[in-house]
């Protein structure tokens, strides 16, 4: 009895020693030098592996950061300026500084403003339904409501609002990795600067139809009337194909365009409520200034 225990114990010990020797020799013989900086930089990165930087994962991004001399056009959107600063300190290279961005959904076509005209029974996926149809409503530009962006988001920063049928971005969780932008077949989601306190102004519509047709399909559609263009003091608004676009590079968040929009298609977020009197006075002034023109 004791003999068999002893035999196996000796055998196993010998096996262990022999294997350890082989492993030691192999690891010395076939050693591959790797820049220790790569692991160091990888530890600094957020380890989200979201591919928002354009590389398959944080490791490959770290390799790229270490191996290229000019890294000013590389940026980790999830870590933002903080992480890039750390990377810059570790590598001693210049990095670009970017304003933090956040995903916005440029469609307000909820069930009550954008009536359904047809019914779709196929698989619930935006990519598939966009291939077969222009959607259940008459708007061929708006949200299809099947939630491919929510599925694509790896940070739980999006959900589908059940009453409106539209996706919502939780801005605190959004890392602006851009996966939802790629997933949307209609290019509805855009990355826009986050600003302080997450103040944003953008046109919540992508409909390029002429005013009447757009309005018939959706009551909050941009009709390309160019009223916002007229009031904008910074020339930040461009109107192309009957559709307004607010260029975030020029927009100073003055909010003048929001009340003049006749279809309420310009969205403002996280601003304090307006002073009522001022807004009313402005609105009446606008009406007066338009009226004589109409008569003439």
């Amino acid at each position, binding site marked *: 009895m004791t003999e068999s225990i002893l035999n196996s114990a000796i055998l196993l010990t010998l096996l262990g020693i022999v294997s350890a020797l082989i492993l030691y020799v192999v690891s010395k013989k076939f050693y591959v030098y790797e820049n220790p900086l790569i692991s160091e930089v990888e530890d600094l990165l957020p380890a989200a592996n979201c591919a928002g930087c354009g590389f398959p994962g944080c490791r490959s991004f770290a390799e790229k950061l270490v191996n290229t001399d000019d890294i000013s056009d590389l940026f980790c959107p999830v870590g933002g300026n903080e992480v890039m600063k750390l990377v810059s300190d570790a590598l001693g290279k210049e990095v670009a500084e970017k304003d933090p961005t956040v995903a916005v959904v440029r469609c307000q076509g909820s069930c009550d403003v954008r009536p359904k005209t047809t019914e779709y*029974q*196929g698989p619930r996926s935006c990519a598939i339904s966009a291939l077969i*149809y*222009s959607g259940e409503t008459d708007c*061929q530009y708006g949200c299809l409501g099947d939630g491919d962006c929510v599925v694509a988001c790896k940070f739980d920063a999006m959900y589908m609002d059940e009453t409106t049928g539209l996706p919502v971005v939780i801005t605190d969780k959004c890392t602006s990795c851009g996966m939802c932008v790629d997933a949307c077949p209609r290019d509805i989601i855009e990355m826009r600067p986050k600003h302080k306190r997450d103040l944003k102004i953008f046109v919540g519509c992508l409909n390029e139809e002429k005013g009447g047709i757009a309005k018939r399909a959706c009551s909050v559609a941009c009709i390309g009337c160019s009223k916002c263009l007229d009031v904008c003091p910074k020339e930040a608004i461009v109107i192309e194909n009957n559709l307004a676009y607010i260029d975030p590079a020029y927009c100073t968040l003055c909010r003048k365009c929001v009340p003049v929009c006749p279809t309420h298609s310009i969205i403002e977020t996280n601003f304090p409520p307006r002073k009522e009197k001022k807004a009313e006075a402005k609105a009446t002034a606008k009406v007066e200034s338009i009226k004589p023109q109409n008569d003439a």
Partner: protein
Amino acid sequence: MLKTFPKGGIHPSENKITSAKPIKRLPLPKVVYVPISQHIGIPAEIVVDRKDKVEIGQVIAKSGGYVSSNIHSPVAGTVTKLDKIVDTRGYKKQCIVIRSDVKNESNFQENEYPLKEEISLQQEEILKRISEYGIVGLGGATFPSHVKLQVKKDKLLDCLIVNGVECEPFLTADHRLMLEKGKEILVGIRILMYALQIDRAIIGIENNKKDAIDLFRSLTSGASGIQIAALQVKYPQGGEKQLIRALLKREVPKNGLPMDVGVVVHNVGTVFAIYQAIQHNRPLMERVVTVTGKKLNDPSNFWVKIGTPVKDLLDAVGGVPEDTRKIVSGGPMMGKALKNTDVPVTKGTSGILVISEDEASRGEPKNCIRCGECVDVCPMGLEPHLLMNLSEKGMYEKAIEEDILTCIECGSCSYVCPSHRPLLDYIRFGKSIGKQLESNK
């Protein structure tokens, strides 16, 4: 024993309720909407402008490249707009809007001409005219016919197949055309045989159209070279590759064309259009459309001018019943449900099918039970359940390896699936991504 293709196929209930109804002429539409992309390939380029007066048969959009086709005005009238109008998928597409002139007599001229048998044109002239007169495949794929007739030097053709199969349930457009224009179709076949320099042609007709088979047999008795083949009733026998396999036992290679096995296939509708173009100088401006549905008052077959809105056709059969759920352009198997009825009839519209509430429901998808029904019925020998899984999970490269690109989208797999899985939806999606990947290579 009737001929058929060996692998797969299904037999849905035929429902050919309009097969005894002669083709009627639809009243002149007030306005026609002529899309510039009615064929596979590059869209045509518009050559008319607003307020231009156009004659019937005048070229209004010129072919945009080699795989493209001219488009002719189906009516005499005035171009009112160059506008965008929804296509069957609901996306806006460029089209030419023409208001027809009710005083112009040419609008009311019918395409009834005395039969003209002798072929006076030379071979090259025939090919040139087919390309100029906007002839495309009228079976549904709308592939420009002149491209099919340009035979490469190294290919040896020995047989012309004329496709009178019409395997889709409900549709009877080709069937009626064969019965009413049999002699003209035979002349068309002779024109094609002359143009391609081949001395053998087979007309393939499914056995549920016995009257057409008998008619052609009596017309061709004594004539050499043209053979009539009765085929077993099976869907999708009208598919080019299936038909070649059934008639000649030749297999078209993967990524290959019928030309590679010495065959050219044309639909009977196309052959008739070619007859009219060559013998009577008429470009392709109208086609036969079956308007059908179990609950319609008077389902019929019509001669319809290209560009006529679908709602005009529905009015002509006594309106749409109350409980209509879907209106499909094409047959029930491969047709596309319409987004709205303003959609115009194009060169590829073979039928308008009205489906009621109780026929249209699509079952709730459940898990795959691995029964293998889809594999049994796939006429291309694919594994639809596997392809669906691969494209659902985004494994497009693997799906290409599994030959997703050879799928003919016949829908047999979705038809038989006992779990109501949306097989074709996912396969079509995977196929579109696969095509993009292939073209990027």
